[in-house]
């Protein structure tokens, strides 16, 4: 018989996860050199390259008086708000998948573990899964902030004190949302889930409206009165949102206003604690939601059975085998709200940002519509769109071939070329990517009232980047598949997914760097020195090689590997 003493599950669960991580790493020794190279690339690119890039951007903005510094602060706040929204969403999705759908939970539920303890163990896991990418991305940003503003090294631990609760709050919010959604709306979970997305979207819209209010005030300010402008910005667009508190806290640390920094830290920590208390209060719903999710699965499957037929009819013009694979992918994708929900959120954020560019009219005195700023912001928008696209290709396209591994008994034995599936993923990815990003590129150009050259450059770059990013995600997905994992997020977070994310960023950065030379020459109407002339002429073949290489090499290597793949 088992002991009747209560089992301390949290340390046991932590020990289990550490043991699993350790065993996973020990399994990597077989391909040590790949992981070493990837590890060094991560360190070099993110800490070195990323911080250098951010440093240059920040220095450049600091020098653009009076428009640059407020734009820089506004950008940082926007980034923090975007991260915050994505963290809520990411936590919600990870909680739903790891706490409700995961087969591990079914095993743990059958053990003598109080449901509340199990929930909090999974919440801790969710915080780690959803936050690590933010931590990696934020680190070079903070390195650059420190170096561009000559701050002491104590900036890092001080900033970390603000960042930890900033990560806990969205985790608690996502967990609370997951608890409520799963407990009360399981039979129509997908519809309710969309509703939750709508609420999040509205929160975003309200936040943006608040920013508009501040910008309205800025329109009244004199262009020369930079100090007033700064103080207006310091009032803070999002003072009810923790991302705003973090932004204010960081500024306070930067200026050595420790009392103020302490205030914002307390605001963040107390909200984080409150969030956990709310989760504890709602945790009683966990068991109900978990069992309801199972009870409703069969009915849900029956109700949505017509979707496959719909896609099948819509794609009737395709060859049968390709149509079957594309229909299967689209149906599976659509039936998993974790997939399209995240997609809606990411592109929704970008859309809101682009729509808000119109409000830049208020910056008339800052001459944002002169070709210089139009071009620079267009390049920035290409970068932002491509960055979101790279997240999409890493999160959704890269894992696709790994997820096919267990289906090889049917797809692998079908009388079609094995590589057809790789091509199918690439084409679906590229068409989807172009369909999503080209309208955004056009919107960006429309909002900024750019001329034909910049508009063409923006749209063409996004379309070409979609090819390269799709090829990279599909090619690396075929080269480094993970057939053991069912969760696409975890596949994307693995070595191959990380490599894909890094290479995507390098690719986007290199493309934009080359195009910056073109834009520079365009703005100068060709009146540039001999060095720039040389760079300009050199940039064309390099750009072409970069695009051809990125489109062809990963896909070719992936196809070759897939042909010989053993499942």
């Amino acid at each position, binding site marked *: 018989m088992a002991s009747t*003493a209560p*089992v301390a*599950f949290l340390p046991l669960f932590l020990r*289990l996860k550490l043991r699993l991580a350790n065993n996973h790493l020990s*399994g990597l020794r077989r391909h040590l050199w790949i992981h070493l190279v990837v590890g060094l690339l991560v360190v070099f690119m993110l800490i070195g390259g990323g911080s250098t890039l951010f440093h240059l951007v920040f220095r450049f903005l600091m020098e653009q008086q009076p428009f640059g510094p407020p734009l820089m602060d506004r950008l940082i706040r926007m980034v923090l708000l975007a991260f915050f929204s994505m963290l809520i969403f990411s936590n919600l999705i990870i909680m739903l998948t790891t706490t409700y759908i995961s087969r591990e939970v079914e095993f743990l539920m*059958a*053990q003598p573990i109080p449901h509340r303890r199990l929930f909090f163990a999974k919440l801790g896991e969710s915080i780690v899964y959803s936050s690590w990418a933010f931590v990696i991305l934020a680190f070079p940003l903070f390195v650059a902030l420190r170096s561009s503003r000559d701050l002491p090294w104590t900036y890092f631990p001080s900033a970390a004190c603000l960042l930890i609760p900033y990560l806990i709050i969205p985790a608690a919010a996502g967990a609370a949302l997951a608890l409520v959604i799963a407990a009360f709306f399981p039979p129509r979970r997908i519809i309710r889930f969309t509703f939750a997305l709508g609420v999040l979207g509205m929160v975003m819209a309200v936040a943006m409206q608040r920013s508009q209010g501040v910008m309205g005030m800025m329109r009244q300010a004199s262009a020369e009165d930079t100090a007033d402008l700064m103080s207006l910005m310091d009032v803070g667009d999002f003072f009810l949102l923790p991302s705003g508190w973090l932004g204010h806290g960081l500024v306070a640390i930067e200026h050595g206003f420790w009392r103020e920094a302490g205030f914002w830290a307390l605001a963040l920590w107390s909200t984080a604690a409150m969030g956990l208390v709310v989760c504890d209060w709602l945790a009683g719903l966990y068991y109900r939601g978990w069992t309801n999710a199972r009870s409703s699965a069969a*009915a849900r499957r029956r109700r949505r059975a017509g979707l496959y037929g719909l896609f099948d009819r819509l794609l009737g013009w395709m060859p049968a085998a390709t149509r079957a694979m594309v229909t299967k992918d689209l149906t599976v994708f659509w039936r998993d709200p974790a997939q399209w929900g995240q997609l809606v959120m990411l592109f929704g954020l970008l859309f809101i940002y682009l729509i808000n560019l119109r409000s830049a009219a208020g910056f008339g005195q800052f001459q944002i519509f002169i070709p210089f700023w139009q071009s620079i912001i267009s390049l920035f928008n290409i970068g932002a769109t491509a960055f979101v696209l790279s997240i999409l290709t890493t999160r959704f396209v890269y894992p696709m071939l790994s997820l096919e591994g267990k289906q090889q008994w049917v797809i692998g034995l079908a009388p079609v070329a094995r590589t057809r599936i790789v091509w199918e993923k690439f084409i679906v990815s590229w068409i989807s990517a172009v369909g999503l990003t080209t309208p955004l590129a056009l919107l960006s150009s429309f909002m900024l009232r750019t001329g034909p050259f910049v508009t063409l450059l923006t749209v063409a770059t996004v379309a070409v980047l979609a090819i390269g990013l799709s090829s990279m995600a599909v090619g690396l997905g075929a080269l480094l598949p993970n057939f053991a994992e069912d969760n696409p997020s975890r596949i994307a977070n693995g070595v191959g997914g990380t490599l894909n994310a890094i290479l995507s960023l390098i690719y986007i950065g290199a493309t934009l760097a080359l195009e910056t030379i073109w834009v520079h020459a365009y703005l100068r109407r060709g009146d540039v020195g001999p060095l720039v002339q040389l760079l300009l002429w050199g940039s064309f073949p390099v750009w072409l090689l970069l695009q051809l290489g990125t489109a062809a090499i990963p896909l070719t290597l992936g196809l070759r590997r897939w042909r010989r793949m053993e499942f």
Partner: protein
Amino acid sequence: MIQTDQLCKDYDGKPAVVDLNLDVAPGELFCFLGPNGAGKTTTIKMLAGLLIPTQGAARVAGFDLQRHPVEAKRRIGYIPDRPYLYEKLSGRDFFTFVGDLFGIPRPVQQARLEHYFDLFRLTPAADQFIENYSHGMRQKLVFAAALMHEPQVLIVDEPMVGLDPQSARTVKQVLREQADAGRTIFLSTHTLSVAEELADRIGVINKGQLVFLGTIRELRARLARDGSLEDLFLLLTEEETADG
């Protein structure tokens, strides 16, 4: 030891289990039979606390699964039809993890590990990652882990799938020995020869309703037929389908 009282489960209004009343005694090996989709796994999941009944109650060792789930689960060893295992743990690690979940002292765990791993011939693979185990080895590991805390009730869903003949015999012996030692075995299976060989009593469920409860001899008497359990089972379920 296992009691269900008017136990019902609906899936969005569609009944999966209807008014199930069972009482399985200590030391009894009870086989739960039924065609696919009859409600066997739903019943088992309610007995393991993995589903909430729409109506009625289930009790294990006197503990209501909904009111005292932790106390009830402490007394259950559950072997699902598709068990989840941590691929990156070794068999030994997994066994230890389950032992810790049940609060079994480490020296006791070690002794039981040696006993059950020897019994199921898992000792040579004890330190291999589970990802390298065959289907049968996984099944045997799940059996070993489920028995490690010496549960009063063993709930087993389809135990024979993927087992080689030698392992299947071991499993049957273990189940019989556990029942003889006073533990209650609730066994769901499609392998009717196993039920015929082992069961003290059987229950047959069809379309969510318990259509027979008793010994195989009583089933023969009811149907007024001799023959194997397979013949009787097919006759009973066809009869019920025709009646329905």
